[in-house]
């Protein structure tokens, strides 16, 4: 009961602090710079219509394909790395062996390290090392994504209900067989679902890599923004939305087929 009371008190204090902080805002002053409203209007007007010339559409298509290609390659590499790393990190791969726990700790640390650096930072590092190549784009995305996926895979594998596993052990299954016929099938739908979600994120991230000079939708968006060609920016943004929505639809279908 005392915990509950002090928690409520804390909530109250935090609300009061927030309310007080609002008094510090200069509401009448220039929150938006003077040219802001006009710029915003121009940006919105540029949507009607966006740039639809055949030449630019062709360029958009090529850029979309490039972004898609990078994200597909990156998520593939990420999954390939994340599966063994996640297995190690979950500790289910080597429960019997004495090496299981240290391996799990090491794997978790490594996964944590590679995902704590943002893909954009990885990209800058790889641009220095490898130049503006496809390898740079793919590695910069694959590393943090492997870190995230591996961590999630490990948690999902750990969180399956224990009872069916116990029943499998009782019917004489070895630890590996318990994994194969129990843990993996129970965790798999969630692992797949999350991988798809991460694939969507990879498309967005691949586009963002354009800001360090890697070709694709993001690079084209940046070029058009530089020239204040908002109608082109819109065309490119719509293409990006199309890509993400298409992956979403695909993943919904795969998940539905998997469940039925």
């Amino acid at each position: 009961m005392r915990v509950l009371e002090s928690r409520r008190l804390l909530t109250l204090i935090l609300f009061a602090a927030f309310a007080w902080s609002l008094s510090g805002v200069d509401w009448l002053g220039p929150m938006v710079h003077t040219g802001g409203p006009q710029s915003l209007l121009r940006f919105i007007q540029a949507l009607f219509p966006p740039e639809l010339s055949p030449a630019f559409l062709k360029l958009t298509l090529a850029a979309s394909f490039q972004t898609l290609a990078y994200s597909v390659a990156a998520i593939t590499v990420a999954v390939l790395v994340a599966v063994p790393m996640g297995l190690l990190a979950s500790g289910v791969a080597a429960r019997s062996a004495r090496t299981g726990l240290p391996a799990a700790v090491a794997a978790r640390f490594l996964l944590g390290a590679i995902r704590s650096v943002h893909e954009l930072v990885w990209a800058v590092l790889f641009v220095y090392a490898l130049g503006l190549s496809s390898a740079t784009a793919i590695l910069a995305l694959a590393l943090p994504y492997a870190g995230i996926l591996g961590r999630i895979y490990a948690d999902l594998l750990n969180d399956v209900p224990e009872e069916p596993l116990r029943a499998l052990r009782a019917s004489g299954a070895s630890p590996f067989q318990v994994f194969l016929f129990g843990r993996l099938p129970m965790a798999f739908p969630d692992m797949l679902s999350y991988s798809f979600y991460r694939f969507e994120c990879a498309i967005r991230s691949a586009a963002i890599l354009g800001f360090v000079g890697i070709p694709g939708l993001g690079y084209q968006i940046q070029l058009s923004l530089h020239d204040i060609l908002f109608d082109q920016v819109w065309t490119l943004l719509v293409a990006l939305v199309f890509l993400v929505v298409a992956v979403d639809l695909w993943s919904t279908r795969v998940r539905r087929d998997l469940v039925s």
Partner: protein
Amino acid sequence: MIGRNGKNPQAEGRIPLPQASREDGLGPDPAIVVAEGICKSYPSIRALSPLSFNILPGEKVALVGPSGSGKTTLLYLLAGILQPDEGVLSIDGRPMTSVRPGRELSQLVGLVHQQYDLVPHLSVLHNVLAGRLGQWGLLRSVISLVWPRDRQMAEEALAQMGIGDKVNERTSHLSGGELQRVAIARLMMQSSRIILADEPVSSLDPARAEGLLGLLTDLVRGSDGNDGKTLIASMHSPYLIRKYFSRVIGLREGVLQFDMPSSEMTDEVSDRLYDLEQPEPALWGVGN
């Protein structure tokens, strides 16, 4: 000491063991389960006081007793999930401590849990085949995930359970009654000599409870002249015990209360075993 005749001197005269003499005159069957003074304690509670009994092949034994009486602990000891603190538990003439977990243990004892504990994401076929895992090597189990081995055996088991048409169904789509049948089919694939069931009917309506016990006892009876298996299940209903079991062992707070043919399991005996007011019978007589 326990003799070759499989009788427990401690309970001699009290336990009318089934007549198990062989017609060839070689004497009675050796017991398949021999418990000699097994006991088990948890940090705060004594789950089983030293307990000795024998069970013969083909017996259908019901364990009765209120919650916390030690039924589940006893089943887990028999399944090899727990080890007794003291005493020796032998199955088929071998101390449990010398039975290797995995393949060896799985051929001796199989356990059905209350909730059946199937893997909902796998097909019915794969859940049934999981009963074979103890017999399968690594490679065979990997291959079986895609191209199932022993498929015909599993189909026969399911057909025998009356759900042959559900082979390729996803297990999560099955009803409660069908899940039970899958769990028993899995147990059939395991083909252990002893079948343990932890409160198999506690969450079922009366008709389904009888259906399940019918399936279990059929499985125990064995087919085409095999001498069958042994069934040990924790139960509550005196009626079901009389109908489906041959022997009943009563436990209360880890202490053996009775061990007798199931025909003697009257409602009165049951009421006395479960009576919450047992220690103070006079309380309700006074006053008013």
